[in-house]
């Protein structure tokens, strides 16, 4: 199995598209994937829009950046997307009514993937809504048994998104050295 994907997830409007756009080497596209889940009553022609970007590493290697469809009704796609994933970037919008509920939902939904890899959390829109604070997010995450990196990010800023991904990599292995 290829180990070459980083998955971006989070509720609608949290900044997944923007974050992928900030870091991708190519202009991100919205792919239309066929929703071909056999276990639910869906039309075989149902399509789902996903964000896609790529990092072109030296030597021709590509790291694929996938943004999950934000709407929960497409959650059957998420398992397919995470297969071969390096880790999860969860973006949360601090202006939403209940960002803790959002965080709980996504951490529980991706629990299996997270326990096999790692998750990092980027909180967006903190310049507009400074609360909840990062401290409060940590309390909530720790109550779920997790202590991941949780940073304020501006999804438009490449350096913020880059740091988030770097922290994901170091969470996987603190002894990593860049090559």
């Amino acid at each position: 199995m290829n180990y070459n994907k980083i998955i971006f997830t989070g509720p609608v409007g949290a900044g997944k598209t923007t974050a992928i756009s900030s870091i991708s080497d190519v202009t991100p596209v919205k792919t239309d994937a066929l929703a071909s889940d056999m276990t639910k009553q869906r039309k075989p022609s149902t399509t789902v829009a996903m964000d896609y970007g790529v990092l072109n590493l030296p030597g021709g290697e590509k790291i694929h950046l996938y943004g999950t469809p934000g709407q929960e009704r497409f959650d059957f796609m998420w398992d397919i997307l995470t297969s071969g994933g390096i880790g999860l970037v969860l973006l949360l919008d601090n202006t939403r009514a209940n960002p803790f509920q959002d965080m709980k939902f996504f951490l529980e939904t991706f629990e299996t993937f997270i326990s096999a890899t790692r998750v990092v959390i980027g909180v967006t829109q903190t310049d507009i809504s400074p609360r909840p604070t990062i401290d409060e997010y940590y309390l909530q995450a720790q109550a779920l048994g997790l202590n991941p990196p949780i940073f304020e990010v501006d999804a438009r800023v490449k350096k913020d998104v880059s740091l988030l991904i770097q922290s994901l990599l170091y969470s996987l292995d603190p002894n990593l050295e860049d090559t």
Partner: protein
Amino acid sequence: MQNQSKILKIAAPALDERMKRTLRLFFLGPCQNTVVFAENSAARAALIDIDAIGAEALLNEQQATYPQRIIVLLSLTEQQRPGTIWLKKPVQIQEMLRVLDTVRRQIADTMAIDEPAAAAEPTKIVLAADRPRRRAHETALLLDEQGFGNFLGTLPDVDPYNTEQRDAVYYDPKRYLQGYIQAAYKHALQQDRILRINTSAQPIIVFPHSREIWIDINDDDLREQCVIPVQTSRNGAGLTVSPLSTEEVRKADHSLEKFQGMEAFLWKLALWASSGRAPEGIDLDQPVYLRRWPNLTRFVNPPHALRIAALMVEQPRSLISVAERLNTSPAYVFAFFSAACALGLAGQAKRRIDHPAPRPESPPRRKHQGMLSRILGYLRRH
């Protein structure tokens, strides 16, 4: 409960949800809920983004249907149209407050409503309550080794492995500006008051509601104050702290660039004060804990900050062993740890509770280490 008749009701026909959400927070914060969105018929004013497609038709419709309504036009370019007030995009807080004041006055002139006392002094509301942060984002500064040396100005050439030099590895945060700021933060947050710290140069004002500080000094001058112990008077008193009156807050210069996040500011001060040393009282050979990752996207970071954080948050380890394991200078580890201590995120591991939250079984890291290293290298170079 708010007197409903004193609330300014604004319609926002065709304004996108994102903008509306932002404005709701603004109405809740600086306007202290004296302004709300309302259905068309109930509103006495309307906000229209005149740059949007279809806005001209919308404006005509509004003016025809509600001739008494005050229309606020959001636009990049100046608008001079009868019966409207122009609000320049991108919207600035003070400008928005000024326009809302003007709307109220015009409504009062035509409809004789009572103005709420709170709205009469919007500046006070902005400064006394939570002020939405409108500072430009201060993205993290990741320093390499030379950059860190330049940032500190000096790095002690001390060998912590040499027991005779061990004393020189430590510093006492309480003797430096860092310590005074820490105490002032605690005081401001506990008392819920805006406080001023009177330094030998510029004052530092602490805004606990928005978790910001105000300071009118550049980093080079500030660093000079941070790297040497604070001079104390004969009775041992150092810097003084005093509450700020509302009048003083109003008169202060509120240029956004003079505000900084409290945590980021204290982190920076601690890096300077430590200059690569560890806080007094820490045993370098005994485990220390890091409660959680610091908000590294918003801080000045010493070299290897991400690696240090990742290793320290895993489980308690001694500072010396962290440096050895990462094959890095202890000064970077000490600086990081000192800054984390200043924010209350780290300390000597003494109790079971100091251990981080239980982590899931570690994934097979070594298997893909090459790939991860290549991704890391790519990200650091681009």
